[in-house]
């Protein structure tokens, strides 16, 4: 239904040129060969992007490391008694009290120390990596969700919306589309500011655009207008039918979450919503000196937490809880040591939060070990690869086949037990995790020229062992093979590396351990 147009001409189909600038051919081939989305799947993902790199250690606190934290970040560390309790060893910032309650109610999962090998400490580049799910060394121009949609709807945006897909695939709240939804030929998300406002843009005339850069941009503009009109109708209709049952906090972030709940309750079949919260780049004045539970970071955490909690309560009362999964992400965590400006600098891995009634109510992974002698440059070493989190969401939440995920996200995909059998058809469940059955011993520590890893396996299994430096750089893959039951020894050559701190990461199935070792001068 097009309202504002010139007289329709003979119906040349609006064509959008294929725009694959710089997209690696391998990644393109990958995405057109399978069709996998379960059409009955009505599940929704709400992504919360925390811009600037949040200080994970001021968010999810290793309570068993308090004394060591006091030595390396005493100027920003809150009193021990003020830390909210999640488990006997792990705590949460008191500004996130409502998130702590979500945990108590079984609706929160925490994944410790999520990152990727060879952490890049540029905001811009690292956010690109998190949004595209590319390896740190490769530049991909599609987003992880955009590739997923693109595999299923390769012609998009041409001839969308249509009767089979009348609603937007994804919605970015605010004024810019999210790169996570960048597909092979265009972004799968539309932006949304006011869901009640019906948009009627002038669409001009259906004409083919010339085969030039001008024509490309013209076609992009025309299709953007046509889609905005078409999707606007479905959004306004859903907003009219939908409802909110709670009063949200009075800020943009919470309003955006309330609009998401409204649209879901109004029947919009959008699969992905993306919201952002900025300001996490707290190089200075992260906390208030007088009360270190307050300050810029605490205020942001409170906005995040209160918004999430109101949203979750709304979904519960609307009976939509089991359809919606929430997930936070940030481009990196910050350094373990604080700086003297009462702030923290760019670091490495960062905890990631999952919320909803279908998450495994757990803290996946170990508390980071805080060494009181930690180098000023060190961030938290990675325990979980964020691509395994994404892959598991695609697999267990959206029903994507594992083989497809290996192509869409990364070939070493390892599902994680982060979602439980809820209304899921598949689940990597196994929650709670069985205790690890392997024994691993690293010696000598400190080491000099060689380090040895002894592993005792009760059964044949694949284990992946990598050596990381203190900055999160992957120095070596020690093993990624299937091994027989019994004892295995891996000598790890250390003599070519300078003295300092290193990490050995051992992953088998869903178990990951990251062990700190020190190399001393020979």
């Amino acid at each position, binding site marked *: 239904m097009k309202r*504002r147009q*010139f*007289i329709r*001409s003979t119906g040349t189909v609006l064509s959008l*040129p*294929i725009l694959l*600038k710089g997209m690696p051919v391998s990644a393109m081939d990958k995405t057109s060969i399978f069709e996998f989305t379960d059409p009955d799947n009505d599940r929704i993902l709400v992504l919360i992007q925390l811009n600037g790199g949040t200080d994970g250690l001021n968010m999810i606190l290793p309570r068993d490391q308090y004394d060591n934290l006091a030595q390396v970040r005493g100027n920003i560390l809150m009193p021990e008694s003020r830390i909210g309790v999640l488990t006997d060893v792990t705590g949460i910032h008191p500004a996130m009290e409502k998130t702590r309650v979500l945990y108590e109610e079984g609706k929160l999962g925490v994944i410790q120390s999520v990152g990727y090998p*060879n952490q890049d*400490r*540029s905001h*811009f*580049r690292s956010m690109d990596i998190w949004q595209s799910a590319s390896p*740190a*060394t490769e*530049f991909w*121009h599609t987003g992880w969700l955009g590739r997923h949609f693109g595999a299923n709807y390769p012609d998009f945006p041409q001839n969308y919306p249509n009767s089979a897909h009348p609603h937007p695939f994804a919605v*970015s709240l605010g*004024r*810019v*589309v999210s790169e996570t939804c*960048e597909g092979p030929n265009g*972004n799968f998300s*539309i*932006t*949304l*500011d006011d869901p009640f*406002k019906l*948009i009627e*843009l*002038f669409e*001009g*005339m259906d*004409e083919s655009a010339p*085969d*030039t*850069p*001008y*024509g*490309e*941009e*013209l076609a992009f*503009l025309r299709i*953007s207008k046509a*889609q*905005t009109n078409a999707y*606007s109708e479905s959004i306004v209709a859903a907003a009219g039918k939908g409802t909110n049952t709670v009063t949200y906090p009075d800020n943009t972030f919470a309003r955006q979450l309330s609009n998401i709940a409204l649209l879901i309750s109004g029947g919009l079949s959008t699969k992905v919503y993306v919201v952002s919260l900025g300001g996490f780049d707290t*190089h*200075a004045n992260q906390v208030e000196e007088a009360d270190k539970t307050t300050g810029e970071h605490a205020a942001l955490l409170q906005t995040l937490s209160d918004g999430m909690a109101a949203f979750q309560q709304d979904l519960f009362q609307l009976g939509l809880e089991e359809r919606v999964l929430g997930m936070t992400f940030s481009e990196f965590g910050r350094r373990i040591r604080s*700086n*003297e*400006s009462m*702030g923290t*600098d*760019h670091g490495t891995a960062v905890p990631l939060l999952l919320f909803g009634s279908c998450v495994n109510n757990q803290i996946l992974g170990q508390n980071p070990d805080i060494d009181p002698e930690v180098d000023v*440059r060190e961030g938290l070493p990675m325990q979980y690869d964020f691509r395994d989190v994404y892959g598991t969401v695609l697999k267990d939440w959206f029903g994507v086949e594992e083989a497809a995920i290996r192509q869409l996200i990364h070939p070493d995909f390892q599902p994680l037990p982060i979602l439980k059998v809820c209304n899921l058809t598949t689940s990597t469940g196994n929650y709670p995790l069985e205790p690890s059955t392997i024994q691993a011993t690293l010696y000598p520590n400190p080491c000099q020229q060689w380090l040895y890893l002894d592993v005792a396996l009760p059964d044949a299994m694949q284990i992946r062992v990598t050596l990381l*430096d203190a*900055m*999160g*750089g992957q*120095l070596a893959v020690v093993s990624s093979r299937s091994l027989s039951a019994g004892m295995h020894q891996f000598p790890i050559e250390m003599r070519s590396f300078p003295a300092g701190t290193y990490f050995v990461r051992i992953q088998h199935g869903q178990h990951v351990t990251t062990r700190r070792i020190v190399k001393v001068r020979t």
Partner: protein
Amino acid sequence: MEEPTTQTTGLDKYTGEWSLTDAAHLLRRTTFGPTLAEIKMGHAMGLDALVQRLIQPSPMPNPPLNANFADDPNVPIGSTWVTAPYVAGENLERYRNQSLAAWTLQQQLQEQFSLREKMTLFWYNHFAVHNINDPKYLYKHVTLLRENALGNFKQLVKEVTLDPAMLRFLNGNQNTRQAPNENFARELLELYTIGKGPQVAQGDYSNYTEEDVIAIAKVLTGWRDIGYRTLNPSVQLHAIFVANRHDTSTKQLSHRFGQAVIPNMGEREYSYLIDLIFQQQEVARFICRKLYRWFVYYVIDESVENAIIEPLADLLIRQNFELQEVVRTLISSEHFFDRLNRGPMIKHPLDFMIGLLRQFEVPQAPNPGPNQTVFFQLYNIASSMDMNYYNPPSVSGWKAWHQEPGYYRFWINGTTLPIRENFSDALAGPGLRFAGHLLRINALAFLDKLDEPADVNALIESCIVALLPQDLTADQKAALKDLLVGGLPDFVWNNEYVAYKTEPGNTNAAALVEGKFRNFIKTMLSMAEYYLS
């Protein structure tokens, strides 16, 4: 559909026949939207003279004034606030911010044949200072950018390094010997000078390494800004060097800078460092790529890299980082005027809004108070399209100039499109009323200045030259014409126009022409073609 033909033109001077559309292209890319009269004037000047006019220095504007705020004891209405102190308990930042915002857009509106305002915005996007809650700091910063808009890139980086707003923005003022803060050091390399190459090893980004970030942070220790939100009338904004906060150790850079060693040089050390960074060829390429994306197009493929970026960077180095000849060469080149570079740039929100006001010579409010309110409201409309001049979204600036693969397309989405169209609909139609002033296109005045306004076909051609980057199709022209003649023969328009012109008392004739022509303008301004430059 095939990929567009690749660009084959280079930096040689454009020697094609100098046409009205060439002049229009040059003026649209370098100023905030020319009128038809300006296009004709530019055409008459010829390429060389017009480019010379665009790049030659012009006097700096007068500072922003207190237009209408009665409660600033330090600044009477009609005077400037840019050096005046604050007053305890008074929120003076608010009106001063509004004054700065409105004044900034007025500079864009009032400028004629000069690319200084577009270059000022270029630098604002480049350094992307934000979250500074003192408009005096922002004024000082933007003045530095404006003064050096087409000056020396190396000198500009040096001055920005010690600019009070920058010292606050990236925590340079907290960067001390005891506690180095590497925020500015990192962005100096990654975003301001050399750029980040591929990560080839852990912490090694081809052009620099993590060790360089740490060493450079030490080089820059000791600087502080003075005067933030000061109440003291004798304190003016400036940067100072505090020797005991400076790290006096010898700093060692990586192999990416030839293992350069920087001994303690106190307050001259930053300058030595920046000279050292600028010895790397990549700095010139980095800034030339940004200039290319600013003036030409966002796609930089291998042929553009070889035919444009490389020689332009060489020229910049030969010019010792003076920008004037580099920009002159770029905007006079056959590549700039290449058919493939006509029209593929999506106008950013300010280009769209200010351009529209300029092209139609929309009258400003007669008094400074209301006029400032009008421009502040315009500033807010641009902000609602994600272009808040003094608050870019991140330290990388606006996505349109750096984020692959979308680039300029980031301006366009379901939120911003309606704002554009509502704006042009209002200006072509009933107008926008702010502070009692009606901001509205004078449709008949615009019509009368077109070539042969009585001839409906000539009028459409004239509008296309004035407003659009490329010609329209015959079907589009027919549809536009239909808005003026409504299916009747062409002479009907001629009759109506002549009646309006020759019968001064005939208000019906004027109203008839105006009504139709407003609808015509409204339609043209909401065509996708008008969003392109």
